């Protein structure tokens, strides 16, 4: 929740008064959604809360129309950490006793994931900065990647429904 709030404060700190008011409300909704997810065990609310916080950031970027934001790797890591830790909390509800050191191992894995995310996001940002404005080819590549991810979403959803039945 701290990670989510940290991400949510980025657009609040940057935006003008009108946007700040709107963004505080969005952040509050995201916070309540994550809280409800953790308390009630509703895992489907976790991505919704993350999406709200990320959406607020995206809106601020779109309105501000600033050049490439260098803080985005930190925001990406914040969002990933918020999601990882929220899902970890939900996993702990099962209360299956495990081997000693399982928690530490998982914490190390989450930290490693966050570091990896930071490195990848920074590299991508550098790449984007390098190739930005070089024509339509990059836009096409982005569109293809988006379509691929959407296909992956649909395939995953189909897997879920078939294993559920």
């Amino acid at each position, binding site marked *: 929740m701290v990670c989510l709030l940290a991400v949510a404060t980025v657009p609040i700190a940057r935006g003008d008064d009108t946007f700040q008011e709107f963004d505080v409300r969005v952040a509050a909704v995201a916070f309540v959604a994550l809280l409800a997810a953790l308390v009630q065990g509703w895992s489907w609310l976790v991505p919704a809360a993350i999406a709200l916080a990320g959406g607020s950031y995206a809106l601020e970027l779109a309105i501000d129309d600033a050049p490439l934001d260098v803080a985005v790797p930190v925001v990406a890591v914040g969002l990933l950490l918020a999601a990882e830790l929220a899902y970890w909390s939900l996993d702990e509800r099962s209360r299956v006793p*495990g081997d000693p050191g399982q928690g530490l191992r998982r914490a190390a894995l989450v930290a490693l994931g966050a570091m990896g995310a930071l490195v990848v996001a920074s590299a991508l940002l550098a790449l984007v900065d390098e190739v930005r404005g070089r024509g339509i080819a990059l836009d096409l590549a982005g569109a293809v990647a988006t379509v691929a991810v959407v296909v992956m979403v649909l395939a995953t959803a189909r897997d879920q429904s078939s294993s559920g039945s």
Partner: protein
Amino acid sequence: MTRAGNPRLVGYVALAALGLLGALALRRPELAVAAAPFALVVALGVRARDPRVAVIFTMGAERTLEGADEDVTLTVRSERAVDRLELLLDLPAGVQVAAGEAAQSLRLDAGEERELDVALRCARWGVYDLGAVKVRARDPWRLVTWEGQVGALHRLKAYPRPLTLRRLLAPMETQAFAGSQVARTKGDGVEYADIRDFVPGDRVRSINWRASARRQGLVVNDRHPERNTDVVLFVDSFADVRYGDRSVLDDAVRAAAALATKYLEHRDRVGLVGFGGVLRWLQPGMGSTQRYRLVETLLETGVAPTYTWRDVNVIPARILPPAALVLALSPLVDPRFVVALEDLRGRRYDVAVVEVDPVPLVRPGRTEVERAAYRLWLLEREVHRWRLESRGIGIATWGDGALDTVLEEVRTFRRYARTAHV
């Protein structure tokens, strides 16, 4: 094992897609960068493969006593490394974990084998199928799970816990073979019966010299021979009365097992009739094999509701040998069982009843109608009891006390009861 995606997988894929779509729509590459870590985790997670877990369930013995601990070992092996393997011992109702955990999680390296020790306890007698283990393996990123049920089924028979019995109910008539029961007839034996005049053919060692001296003629001692008996345990399985963890059928089966064991120790032949919705019987026999047969037949006893009228004609004739003691164990709830007992008595069987008391297990109710029904039920039970007693059938109620005391009550009734005209 079945592969399934976690909610996290759907969530991460959705977030990645949302980020990329947002990047395209708003023309802000930062959103694609923010979505990249989620896409990266998904890409790492979906590469995980089925760990191929095998679980071997090993049980120390096939038989145990209710309430006793039985050690069980779970040997877990995985072909591929599993970051988190959750095992849930799927136990049937009536079996609980006495030591260890029913649900455990562990981490296994590729080819690693681990043994988990668990002690199980059967809270109630019965036959239990154990060995089903639910397995759930998770990848390190918790995106994909493999779930399944492994392990072969093992049958565990929980015998009723033994009850203390010092003295048994003696039947009116004994059988022809040697046993431990003092017969009412006269013959060769240990117990003194009477004296009579000497007749040619009497053994010299039977002569009572003191009595002969007083009577100026030879008199000999008559003795009661020790014979075996036939006992048929007649268990009422028409209905069960249950409250909390107590049940009259459970108690009846415990008592039947204890009585069977004790009679068999006295070299008597013991048979069994489970009279109810399903008729179960076991021909009278003796020895330790018969004991196991009896107990295992008792373990199958359960209530199968039926509305059809049943009488003793459905019992095969060889199950009820002549002059056998029919020892009934019943809560006297179903009138069909009471009629069956009257019928048996009418056929000149020696019948005695241990009434497993259901009254403490029944609440009188809150409303006046419920309380009236309760009182009527109690009166109906009195009528059942009176009907049986008037036919010379000894009854004693068994509640929380010792079974020995109850048998003593029946013995006293039979000692002083007049011969019934049936």
